């Protein structure tokens, strides 16, 4: 990804709108008693398009903005989201994405990782109440929702950042060589 001030502004706007959408819409709707969390998927998509550094910085910034709006201790969401952003970016740098299922699967896996990360940090900070096993259902369903939401988010983010993307080599169907006259 070629980062110009305009593209950085676009990434910032995507993060900002993503956080506002999460708090005002996705956190307030429930399917099977679980709300979707699009922020890990959004950070994964940015990282898949921009690489590990973009992913880490985007994750940190999105997390910081989220913690500011929720008036929570700063740093928890930043730490979790920057980690998954970096991991998704590393994946992008090391492997080619040939299959359209890969972004969705990565969104699912890394959303689960983010949920586990939140849980770990919360346990380290201390929990003053017993924990229900329903939290496991919550984590699993959130990652399933991320699978279904990951692909449209990826397409949308890619469309918004298209001017900055390095042209991907088009996959052309190679014609079989034919003998003249055959």
């Amino acid at each position, binding site marked *: 990804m070629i980062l110009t001030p305009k593209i950085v502004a676009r990434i910032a706007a995507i993060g900002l709108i993503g956080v*506002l*959408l*999460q*708090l*005002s*819409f*996705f*956190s*307030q*709707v*429930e*399917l*099977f*008693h679980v*709300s979707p*969390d699009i*922020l890990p998927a959004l950070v994964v998509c940015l990282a898949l398009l921009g690489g*590990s*550094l973009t992913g*880490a*910085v985007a994750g*940190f910034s999105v*997390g*910081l*903005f*989220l*913690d*500011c*709006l*929720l*008036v*929570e*201790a*700063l*740093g*928890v969401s*930043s*730490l979790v989201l*920057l980690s998954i952003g*970096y991991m998704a970016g590393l994946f992008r740098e090391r492997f080619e994405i040939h299959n359209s299922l890969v972004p969705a699967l990565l969104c699912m896996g890394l959303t689960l990782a983010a*949920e586990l990360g*939140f*849980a770990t940090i*919360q346990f380290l*900070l201390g*929990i*003053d*109440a*017993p*924990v*229900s*096993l*329903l*939290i*496991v259902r*919550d984590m699993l369903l959130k990652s399933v929702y991320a699978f279904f939401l990951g692909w449209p988010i990826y397409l949308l983010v890619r469309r918004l950042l298209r001017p900055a993307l390095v042209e991907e080599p088009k996959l052309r169907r190679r014609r079989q060589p034919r003998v003249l006259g055959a």
Partner: protein
Amino acid sequence: MYRKQVRRRRAVLALLIVGSFALLTITYGQGSNGLQRGVSTIFSPVQGVADRALKPARDLVDWFDETFDAKGENSRLKSDLVKVRAQAVAGQEAMQENAQLRKLVELDQGPVLAVSAYKPVTGRVIARSPTLWRSSVTIDVGSGDGVNVDDPVISGDGVVGRIAAAEPGSSQVMLLTDHASAISAKVLPAGVQGVVKPEVGDPEHLILDFIDSTKLVHGGQTVVTAGWRAQGLASLFPPGLPLGEVTKASIVDQEAKEQADIRPFADIRNLDLVQVLTGGSRP
């Protein structure tokens, strides 16, 4: 060149991780800071607009969810209705008796009347935390409307939580399902006292802890805020606010763990309008 890039990438990553830990260390347990106040002040009107604009879409998704639940809910409500009818009859009798007793002993400060010392401010939920580990909502009223930290927050059904942070145009409500929440409560009519705590991850289940194991509570009994006051200290909640209903109170749990299970009256998952009880006397 490539090595330089890798080194730079790792340096930025290390910087961000150290920054996150530093922020966490500085801000953990400190309440709101200048940055958060600034961001809240700027974005709470935007959140308000986004909340209203997205309400039809939210209602549509909720409609699908509620349709799935409707079947199970219907049979539960039917059995609840039978119980509530019996309770309503008993309640009317109790109210008559109560009025007569009040006249007799000239009580002018009943538990429910204490709520009238508060000035309710109505607010709308404009944002919600995406994780169950931190159970909080943002409402569109703040210190500019007279809201202060620790003010009780109620819905039409009962207690919802308390104000955790108040900014000029918005406030953060710590819901009673947050792991840090604890409310002193009593069971009616027995008067058994305890502390209502959540079970993290299950918004429809609370635990009434530290109850007196010598006095038994039973399923179906109502739990209200205790609202105690002693030697300059007082509960943040006025007495008599409905909290929930005892769902399971086995003798083993009560005697061994001093606990009973309760279901909150307030629909914590689908909060829209809430009231903040501002003012009131607090030590």
